[in-house]
């Protein structure tokens, strides 16, 4: 159920004041997650309030860009015509930002080479005004 009128191979997010730092940080090579200056907690998806202490002193902050695969699936279904399959959809738990998990794709390795617990590193892919944080396996 693609549900988007797009010519891109990926439906892209609409940028707004909450999500712009996340989706454009890749231009500077930074993965930016909302961080609280008061309690040090991380809030994702980004919102103008800390989900741990309700402080409004939250702002995007660069994290290391590494993480661990929490779980994944190999998608075989073409959800819209022309979609290239198979590919890996994964949840990546970010290093240095406890509790933050990103849905993403693992690229740069055969789909069968991906496993839970694999260490991965962000690799941004530019699509117009959006830099998608994809991940590839980190060298062992």
């Amino acid at each position, binding site marked *: 159920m693609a549900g988007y*009128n797009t010519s891109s191979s990926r439906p892209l997010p*609409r940028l707004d004041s909450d999500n712009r730092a996340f989706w454009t940080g890749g231009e500077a090579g930074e993965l930016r997650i909302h961080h609280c200056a008061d309690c040090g907690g991380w809030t994702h998806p980004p919102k103008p309030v800390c989900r741990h202490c309700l402080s409004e002193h939250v702002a995007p902050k660069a994290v290391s860009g590494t993480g661990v695969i929490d779980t994944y699936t190999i998608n075989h279904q073409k959800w819209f015509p022309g979609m290239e399959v198979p590919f890996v959809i994964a949840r990546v738990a970010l290093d240095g930002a406890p509790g933050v998990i990103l849905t993403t794709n693992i690229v740069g390795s055969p789909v069968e080479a991906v496993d839970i617990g694999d260490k991965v590193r962000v690799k941004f892919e530019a699509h117009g005004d959006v830099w998608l944080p994809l991940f590839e396996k980190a060298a062992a």
Partner: protein
Amino acid sequence: MKPIEAYISGVGQSEVGMRLTRHPLLLTVDAVKEALAEAGLSIAQIDGVSTYPGKVPAMPGFSPVGADELVDALGIRATWYAGGGEITSQLGAVVAAAAAVRAGLARHVICFRTVYEAAAVARPDEYPVQRGDRATGNSQWFSPFNALSAATWTAQYAMRHVKKYGLTREQLAQIALTDRKHALLNPRAMIREPLTMDGYLAARMISDPLCLFDCDRFSDASTVLIVSAGDALDEVQCTPVRIAAMAGSVERLSWDQAEWMACYATGRDLWKRTDYKPADVDTAQLYDGFSFQCLAWIESLGFCDVGEGGKFIEGGTRIALDGELPLNTFGGQLGAGRLHGFGFAHEAVTQLRGNAGERQVRRAGGRAPRVAVAASGGGPLATALLLTRD
């Protein structure tokens, strides 16, 4: 004053099919009439309406009829009504109705879920999906990665079971195989063709480990349950089924931030609100929009330990009609059609009344079931109902 208990009186269901041409409001009226007839109630006695997820204009097939429309169409004099998607999954609409009758806000509430997804796909000019050019809201966190279906989100939880607990395809197959076997005994089931293990294993993969037969198919149907107040049962002709306990929960709605699906918390909570135990359950009707969600519900409700669901359903004998936990006896959504949550409660009530015909569960000594559990929701939303024939 004695607290008012909530009961389910009449239940009803329209024709269930794919690409039906009957108007979705008329399907809803069909189900309402059947439920009213079973309860021996007239529309004049109905004073409440509850539905999930309310009318969704952007996706008319997903929810073509709202509470507003039904109230108006049937001339219902409602003292309470509700309809919306921000609730603990489909059967949350029944929980809301039960809370309303317990509070004295209404006496007989029509709860309904009408789906028209197959017809809408077939007739897009009449039922157009409103598409944007960009992803917004929670969708933006999946769509750019082409994680475009709940199949891909659910598959990731399933994969964790595969890797962590050794869940096999042969084990998971038992949900689909059991559903399809039971659907053969349900005259209203949408898919009435047998499925073999070989057929299951040969099916194309959708999102590993979920194959085609692990995913429900769009259907067109309406399901109705009437929730009645305990002090209004003298107006009801059928055997009332008591809502003995209810539970629900919501996890992080972006799906990916949640450690586990919401059913695990809901299952635990249900048993805190009753003296019944999992061993008392005579039949379980558990959400299976994707097969793995059903397996997760079996674990969540304590029928086995977390991680043991695969072993529990292995071979299918425990969940067969004559097994220790007769499961999804109407065929579930994988066999009976994507009734979207309400089918599970409809079947639980039908079984408790002994009205299930060829698929009727008989417990030791030939008795009809006395205790049933119905559950809806997968991912971040979950609702469970414990239903009893007192």
